[in-house]
């Protein structure tokens, strides 16, 4: 059996890093050198893939997909058989906060689907205003999703996200 978790977020939001932290295998990515200055040398141009071996018969695929609407054709690849969604938002990134509404619609995020929102890059600046903006997007939909400020490089943060997804699934 193969189940899927989609990690969705804009460039530099930490998808590749979190999948690296969780995956049982070396992450398959489509990184190339950045042609413009985006704050890092390499960037993903397709889908990241890693997986967790749950047991002899089951794997949990970890799919990193871009969050911008113009890449929604890539979302179709992961939508079928999706168990959970992790949305990564870069702190104070207006574009990715703006795209949140569309993502919630496209993936039909309801209270019953395990979903966590992670805000990355909060090292030097408070994530409070980003949290407020995200919650103001969720509240009109009656969604009470966990919104965490995280460091994608920290394995404990990756574990926190997975534990939360499991706890939400378990309480259904």
């Amino acid at each position, binding site marked *: 059996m193969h189940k899927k978790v989609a990690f969705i977020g804009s460039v530099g939001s930490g998808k590749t890093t979190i999948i690296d932290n969780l995956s049982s295998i070396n992450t398959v990515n489509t990184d190339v050198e950045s042609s413009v200055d985006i704050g890092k040398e390499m960037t993903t141009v397709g889908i990241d893939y890693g997986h967790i071996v*749950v047991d002899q018969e089951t794997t949990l695929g970890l799919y990193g997909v871009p969050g911008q609407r113009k890449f929604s054709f890539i979302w179709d690849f992961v939508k079928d058989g999706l168990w959970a969604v992790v949305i990564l938002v870069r702190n104070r990134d207006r574009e990715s906060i703006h795209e949140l509404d569309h993502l919630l619609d496209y993936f039909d995020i309801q*209270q019953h689907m395990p979903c966590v929102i992670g805000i990355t890059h909060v090292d030097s600046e408070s994530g409070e205003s980003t949290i407020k903006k995200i919650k103001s997007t969720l509240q009109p939909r*009656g*969604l009470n999703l*966990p919104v965490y400020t995280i460091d994608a490089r920290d394995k404990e943060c990756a574990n926190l996200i997975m*534990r939360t997804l*499991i706890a939400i699934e378990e309480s259904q």
Partner: protein
Amino acid sequence: MNIRIACAMGGRDLALIKSILSLQSEYNGSQLSFTEDTRQSDVLVVKDYLDDGAVYYALNRKNGQKTPILPNLNPKSLRHLFSALGQQSLHANQSIAAVDQLKPFKTILLEYMQANSDSLMMVASSDWCVLFDKDNNRMHANRKIDQALVQALIDQPDHDTEILAASDPLPAELEHSAALENWCWQLGLDDKTQNMLKRLDLNDPKFKLISWPNFGELKFKPEFIQLCSGLWHSAMTQKEIIQHMGVEPALLCQFLNATLLTGHLAMVPNHDTDHTTTAKPTGESGFIFNLKRLFGF
């Protein structure tokens, strides 16, 4: 009288409530309006998921009264609820009830954090003065906000407590500041006892999660995540939580103290006729069982 209604559900339930309020907002002389912010509401409409279905009720955030919505959430039952709310005297403009000087500081703080007002609360003695501003998630003091100040707040019974309007200017001498939620959370986490809960007026209340704490920033135990998920799903008493989720009582106290003091948890009156949440049947899927094992549950 203005009454702000919020809804802890989404989808059809949310759409129905908003729709009924948009068709008619005045009931028995009171003006009802919808607010998206559950923590700022006067009345919160809640759904508990049970083994044999779901139950709806309205929770009055001012006086803790619980009104069942029967038989389920539909236009007729909602109009009936709104009519009943309109008749009740919510005292929406009344400030927080006069503070009982005999109450321990944590109980006073809890009442302030649970109230849906945006007022400020000032607690002062001859040596120190602390202002709590939950709307802006800040606390301000005239001295360093450290463990010694916490102990002074807890130990000193003869402090003055005053409720101020949100528009009042901050006193100039309050030059030290800290994030209120982090401070309240730590205060609750450090308390493994039931002392604060015992001072509450509610008899064996149920607890319902209304917003997730930010575990990316707040200290937590792994069990807190499951507690949050479980209490979002259904309101439960302490006994039900321990039976249903197998949590140690001391750890549960830490969780309840921390989440109540930060306003993430609401208290729901427990009536004899209420459903009792029973333990979920065992036999979870192999997928979840093995995933839990992998991630240290």
